[in-house]
């Protein structure tokens, strides 16, 4: 026993000492550290030759030129394209995150899908393109057979460009007028321009680059409004030339933060403030006499604004002191190239006609319409010239019917699209039901106000199909998904950049072969058209989308292909404008909710760091979102310390936010950067589609707000809703 123990001990000690003097432990130590430096689960990117390919970003309406860096055939980084006149090499964070929208497999719809589970359950089965197109042809064919062509509707982000035009043409050939574009602040401005100048189909643009005084009424000029990168550059240019930016907004947004003068105006009274400034300019005779002499109706306008909008009178309701109104109006009018601008936040709500008219009048008074540094009325691109086609009886009958959204006829005959009426129209069967809906580059289930109503409307539509490349909310609620390529995988002409003054066409080009079994929507439309009926097929004489695009662009193709864009930088708008000042303006509708029950006003907050359009925020962009906006999975709403105190709310703590449209659990962020009584709620959160990097984070503000019909245009005039906030 003793011997054993002793020899065991000796063996152990001897063994340990022996091992220590051999190279083994040292070798193992070295090897293990080398292993830790090359862990197999830490990816090693493949190397290859660096090459760049220019293209155009289509993630928003900005139209920026991009330069995609590739390693052999693999895109690894998106950069701004220096040569592009819009962004001149700059790029926003969404564009920079673009590759995540290409590569993120969990977000992409990788092949045509047919719903098998309940709507919204996310249960789909993979089908072939052959099957998918047959499915579409059968569904749509059946509708036509029943003489219900008009019951097909389409929702799309744009009506411009070849793909959208192909869809539009398909709708017309099919026999439906129900092509509905998603709203924009330009819709309301367009109406104001029509009212004052009689010009229809004018595109409104702002010559910020040459302006020395920008007066903005709640526009998130640095929050994604217009073409975002162009706006950042315009702001820097203004900084360089020591120009002025004045921002009227109840919240200290990035734009307000960069402004030389922040006017914390009571929400919803921006138009009053603008008219009040008109009153000051007229009263002080600071208006541009050259312009007003050529215009009509100044007297009527003068009496209208001086009677109703004198600064003293308006000071209380707007919350801006009369002398401040006077001072800003004076300096605005005295500036060399002043420009006033509207379109709240990132500009995806039209707002009231009153507001648009107010800023158009303000611009008119200082005589800057179609002048350097002012508001420009440019024309829409007109390169799409396709041959006429003959409708068959079914189509002709369908086209006799009014639009489902009440636009383009009756009361709202001058308004082109009224998506805000769509849900009600479906639910109330205005004139006829919607039997089929196609959704192209839009995500109405997410972006339309009053989510609950939209969902009900969708549930009522027997057949919903989406062309989405991503598993977004609308795709989740579709019966059929025919996924488009993403912007880096296809050709696409981009005929404008939102708010940009010069004619511009960009060409997005495939920088990478399609990663999945997707198909260009243009091709899908052509293939469906060819199979539904001969008459529809006749409207689509092209073999495929690319042929169509090349033909359409004609002589421009070569330059677009080599350079990525075409522009006419020497363009100036026609110098004469027949302007008529309005002599009365209907009031904008009051926001929803009882003031007694709902003590606060909820306003949506746009941020450049959260994309609130049809594409959900990619992970990189979400990573930049402050913890005062999103914490864990909770959204934070901004309130003033005074509001917090009166309601007994504590910073970063949970609260319940309630509006007439719904209720949500939130946290509060107490900040001096917002007016007392106002609740600022970030837009772009609360997705339930997409992957776990964005889904279920926060609350969708659209679930809490509704739309409001402008009495003159029918457009959505809502800018907020009454709300109450209570501790959780």
């Amino acid at each position, binding site marked *: 026993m003793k011997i054993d123990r002793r020899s065991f001990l000796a063996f152990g000690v001897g063994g340990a000492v022996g091992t220590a003097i051999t190279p083994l432990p040292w070798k193992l130590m070295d090897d293990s550290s080398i292993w830790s*430096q090359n*862990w197999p689960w*830490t*990816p*090693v*990117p493949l*190397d290859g030759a660096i090459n760049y390919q220019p293209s155009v970003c289509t993630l928003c309406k900005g139209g920026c030129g991009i330069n995609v*860096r590739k*390693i052999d055939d*693999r895109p*690894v*980084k998106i950069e*701004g394209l220096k040569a592009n006149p819009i962004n001149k090499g*700059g*790029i*926003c*964070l969404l564009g*920079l*995150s673009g*590759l995540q929208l290409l*590569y*993120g*497999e*969990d977000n992409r719809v990788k092949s045509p899908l047919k719903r098998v589970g309940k709507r919204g359950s996310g249960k789909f089965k993979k089908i072939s393109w052959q099957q998918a197109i047959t499915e579409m042809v059968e569904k749509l064919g059946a509708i036509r057979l029943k003489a219900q062509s008009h019951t097909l509707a389409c929702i799309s982000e744009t009506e411009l460009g070849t793909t959208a035009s192909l869809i539009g043409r398909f709708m017309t050939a099919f026999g439906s007028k129900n092509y509905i574009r998603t709203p924009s602040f330009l819709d309301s401005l367009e109406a104001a321009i029509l009212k004052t100048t009689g010009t229809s189909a004018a595109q409104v643009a702002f010559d910020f680059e040459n302006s020395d005084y920008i007066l903005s009424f709640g526009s998130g000029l*640095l929050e994604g409004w217009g073409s*975002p990168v162009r706006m*950042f*550059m315009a*702001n*820097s240019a203004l*900084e360089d030339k020591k120009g002025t930016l004045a921002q009227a907004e109840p919240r*200290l947004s*990035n734009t307000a*933060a*960069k402004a030389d003068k*922040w006017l*914390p105006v009571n929400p919803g009274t921006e138009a009053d403030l603008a008219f009040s400034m008109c009153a000051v300019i007229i009263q002080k005779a600071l208006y541009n006499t050259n312009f007003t002499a050529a215009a009509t109706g100044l007297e009527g306008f003068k009496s209208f604004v001086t009677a109703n909008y004198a600064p003293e009178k308006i000071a209380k309701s707007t919350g801006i002191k009369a002398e401040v109104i006077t001072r800003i109006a004076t300096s605005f009018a005295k500036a060399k190239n002043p420009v006033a601008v509207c379109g709240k936040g990132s500009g995806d709500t039209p707002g009231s006609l009153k507001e648009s008219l107010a800023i158009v009048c303000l611009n008119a008074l200082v005589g800057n319409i179609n002048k350097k540094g002012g508001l420009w009325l440019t024309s829409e691109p007109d390169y799409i010239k396709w041959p006429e086609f003959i409708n068959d009886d079914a189509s002709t009958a369908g086209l006799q019917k009014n639009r489902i959204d009440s636009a383009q006829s009756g009361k709202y005959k001058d308004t082109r699209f009224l998506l805000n009426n769509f849900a009600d129209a479906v639910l109330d069967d205005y004139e006829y039901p919607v039997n089929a809906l196609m959704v192209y580059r839009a995500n109405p289930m997410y972006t339309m106000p009053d989510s609950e109503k939209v969902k009900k409307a969708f549930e009522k539509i027997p057949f919903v199909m989406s062309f989405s490349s991503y598993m977004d909310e609308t795709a989740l609620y579709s019966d059929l998904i025919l996924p488009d390529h993403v912007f880096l995988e296809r050709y696409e002409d981009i005929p404008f950049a939102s708010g940009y003054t010069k004619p511009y066409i960009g060409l997005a080009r495939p920088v990478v072969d399609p990663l999945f079994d997707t198909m260009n929507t243009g091709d899908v439309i052509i293939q469906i058209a060819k199979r539904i009926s001969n008459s529809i097929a006749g409207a689509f004489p092209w073999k495929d989308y690319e042929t169509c695009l090349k033909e359409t662009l004609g002589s421009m193709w070569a330059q677009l292909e080599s350079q990525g864009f075409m522009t006419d930088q020497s363009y100036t708008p026609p110098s004469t404008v027949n302007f008529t000042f309005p002599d009365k303006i209907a009031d904008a509708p009051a926001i929803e909710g009882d003031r007694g029950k709902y003590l606060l006003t909820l306003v949506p907050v746009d941020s*450049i*760091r959260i994309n609130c359009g049809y594409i959900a925020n990619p*992970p*990189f962009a*979400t*990573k*930049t*979102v*402050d*913890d005062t906006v*999103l*914490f*864990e*999975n909770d959204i934070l709403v901004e309130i*003033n*310390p*005074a509001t917090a105190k009166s309601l007994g709310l504590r910073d970063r703590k949970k609260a319940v936010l309630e509006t007439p449209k719904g209720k949500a659990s939130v946290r509060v962020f107490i*900040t*001096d*950067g*917002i*007016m007392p009584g106002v609740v600022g709620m970030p837009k772009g959160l609360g997705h339930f589609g997409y992957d776990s*990097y964005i889904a279920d984070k926060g609350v969708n503000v659209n679930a809490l707000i509704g739309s409001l019909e402008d009495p003159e245009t029918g457009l959505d005039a809502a800018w907020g809703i009454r709300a109450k906030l209570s501790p959780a």
Partner: protein
Amino acid sequence: MKDFHEKKYGMVIDLDKCTGCGSCMVACMSENNVPFKEDETKKRLSITWMKVYKFTNGKSFPETEVCYLPRPCMHCEGHGGHSPCVSVCPATATDYSTETGIVSQIYTRCFGCRYCMGACPYHARYFNWWDPVWPKGMEKQLSPNVSPRMRGIVEKCSFCYHRLQLAKEKAYSEGRREVRENEYQTSCTQGCPAGAITFGDLINPKHEVYKLKKDQNAFRLLERLGTNPKVYYISSREWVRRAGDNYLAHEKTGKKQNH
């Protein structure tokens, strides 16, 4: 002996132009293979080599003002390369290059003691608390010019050092000894849509940064600590310049240290 090619790369960030849009942050992440997680809202666990700080003048509504301040690594020179982090790293995993003025980080050398993080008053250094995991398909975006980091080590802004290497290779292949100013720009500089960031050699009179750093409104963060950072900021607002350092109540903004 000092090489006459010696450089001090640095940055000048115009806070009057910075809009806080966050492009620089994403430009950095996408250039440098920075990993991301499902939840990045715990900012002190979130790797952002370039981070945009937001702070106010502390006044209440409506006198409140906001400033955005992008914060890359300051590439502190300290006194003679004695930057706060380099001097404390026990394993020589981070170094100050006297040739370029860039503070490097050797990922395979770092063993994750995090002493450098404690030493850095700018919080420019980040630890890989987790293994980096890219969602399905997204690892295809990784650039071969920057190696992805493994769990358990510290990483930080490198002034896109790999871009300098590529620019040098290009210059040498064209028979030039010197890299041109526009050939070596960091990803954030290139991406900034407001043109607020300028990058170059701080000691080269021909470079834009050389002129900008002499702006009367130029300042650096925490100069009084003697970190001698190579990132300058410009702001026309006094309260912003004052926020750049710490001052006793009676002290005037901009009072420099004796040494």
